[in-house]
């Protein structure tokens, strides 16, 4: 066995960066070490729950999707080839679980072939400066509330693309593949999502400053 593929000790793993450490945990889990898999669950459960909640906007569905995603990932761990990060692979499973829940509950809201809208209506005539670090000027709890509410107010088609591209940092191509969309459709939805969220934050940072965006738009 070469030095590169020799299993590292727990101490060595704990000194390694998060990605290397993740690879060690995955290797150990694949070899049957349940504690390593439980460590992966502990590490990612909050992020996966946020992901499934942001997609489904339903607590019960998000809980079920989170649980199912971890169980499926364990079940299919032997198929994981390691050509992406384990977390990225887990995200793909969780997105599919969450989308199934969303489609089951609200099939009319997640049409993937809906027409692409332009975003011109989301640009106000005059834009106000937020300053260098606007998020540090408001209470964190208030900011968290506004972020959650802003995401919830987006239509699913925009919310899901934003979640995958900007929060999970998947590529445009990967997002398109996962959602069965074209790359231009992903880009169009991402633009619209970003501009709508920008508008939501503008209200926070300017305390209800003038906006050309209709309330109904958000």
């Amino acid at each position, binding site marked *: 066995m070469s030095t590169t593929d020799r299993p590292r000790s727990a101490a060595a793993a704990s000194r390694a960066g998060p990605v290397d450490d993740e690879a060690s945990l995955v290797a150990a889990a694949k070899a049957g070490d349940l504690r390593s898999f439980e460590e992966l669950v502990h590490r990612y*459960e909050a992020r996966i*729950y*946020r992901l499934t909640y942001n997609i489904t906007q339903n607590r019960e569905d998000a*809980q079920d999707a*989170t649980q199912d995603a971890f169980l499926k990932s364990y079940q299919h761990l032997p198929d994981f080839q390691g050509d992406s990060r384990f977390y990225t692979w887990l995200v793909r499973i969780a997105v599919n679980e969450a989308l199934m829940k969303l489609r089951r509950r609200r099939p009319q809201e997640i049409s993937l072939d809906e027409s692409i809208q332009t975003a011109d209506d989301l640009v106000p005539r005059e834009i106000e400066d937020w300053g260098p670090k606007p998020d540090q000027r408001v209470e964190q709890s208030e900011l968290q509330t506004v972020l959650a509410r802003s995401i919830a107010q987006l239509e699913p088609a925009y919310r899901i693309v934003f979640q995958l591209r*900007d929060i999970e940092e998947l590529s445009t191509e990967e997002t398109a593949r996962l959602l069965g969309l074209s790359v231009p459709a992903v*880009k169009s939805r*991402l633009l619209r999502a*970003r501009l709508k969220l*920008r508008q939501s934050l503008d209200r926070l940072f300017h305390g209800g400053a003038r906006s050309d965006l209709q309330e109904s738009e958000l």
Partner: protein
Amino acid sequence: MGAPEVTCKKVNCKNLLNELCDFLDGELDAATVEDVKQHIGRCEDCRLLVDTTRKTIEIFCKSEPVPLPQELRDRLHQALEQRLRGARS
């Protein structure tokens, strides 16, 4: 966008939106990046649109997920333990 409209080689107030996401994601070719930079250097409204959209992405991106509700954590770990140990036995 606000008047007066500023026109550059390719990018102007009307078509900036077409390039906005690719510009922010670093996915534009060098010539178009230069066009966008020239335009936002001269058009304050477009500069602010780019700046506030970039900050929007950063704020959402760096927000930490809230810890899992204890009820879900307990339920999740019980289910996993049951299924995982069952799968190995």
